[in-house]
């Protein structure tokens, strides 16, 4: 087994990590907010992804994007902030956990998909009609998004079981 990197040991020994680890209320509070964050992310992104794939005909994609994507973005920010706080409490252990590494990889995939989607469709999304199939690349992005975020959630839950 390879040794954990020095920075991981350092953050794990930081006073912030120690405070979160040792406190009675801090850790479960952060866990709870972490769940709230990714619930907002998943809940909003799933609805938008399904619209991209072809469900929800009659809802103008731009109108849905206007509410769903900010909610997803805020949820992502909350989840990443609280996730970082949970990570530092056992950084060296997490870096050896295959489910954690898979989760991080899947989040990376999900974020890359978001970036590509916005680069490709930012200019044209507003003009997409209420009905009818969206571009194939947009449908593909929706499917990939659904799979990557759902799989990231599953791997996150399984961190404690491997």
């Amino acid at each position: 087994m390879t040794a954990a990197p020095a920075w991981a040991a350092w953050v794990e020994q930081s006073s912030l990590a120690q405070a979160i680890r040792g406190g009675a209320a801090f850790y479960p509070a952060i866990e709870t907010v972490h769940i709230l964050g990714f619930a907002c992310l998943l809940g909003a992104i799933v609805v938008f992804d399904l619209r991209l794939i072809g469900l929800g005909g009659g809802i103008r994609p731009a109108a849905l994007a206007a509410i769903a994507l900010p909610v997803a973005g805020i949820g992502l920010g909350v989840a990443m902030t609280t996730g970082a706080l949970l990570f530092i409490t056992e950084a060296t252990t997490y870096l050896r956990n295959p489910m954690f590494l898979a989760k991080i990889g899947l989040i990376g995939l999900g974020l890359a998909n978001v970036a590509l989607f916005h680069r490709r469709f930012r200019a044209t999304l507003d003009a997409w009609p209420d009905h009818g199939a969206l571009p194939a690349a947009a449908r593909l992005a929706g499917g990939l998004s659904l799979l990557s975020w759902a799989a990231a959630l599953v791997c996150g839950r399984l961190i404690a079981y491997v």
Partner: protein
Amino acid sequence: MIQARRLVLIGFACAALFPAAVATAHHGWSGFDTSRTLTVEGKVASVDYKNPHVTIALDAAPRTWEVDLAPPSRMGARGLPDGAIKAGDTVTVVGYPHKTEPQVLRAERITVAGKTVELR
């Protein structure tokens, strides 16, 4: 309660010779063999009072157990705040061994200074 095995402390010298390093693993509850209930009495080598659950290293020859207790919030609520279990204390834990990590025990209850505390 089935008392499948009782492990009794042999000597404090062993504890001094083999200081336990408690791993920081978070063990999924499904990884424990709940068909085998063990009662282990030993001397606390170290206490890691932390989330997601408190762990202690428990010297009970021939092995040093890594015992998973409960989250600090529950430990405190049940009358075992930080400091209530200290290195050097003799305690008894009742719990289940891990299926693949033979030194890991998930405690269902712990007896400290004559007081038995349920952890689930």
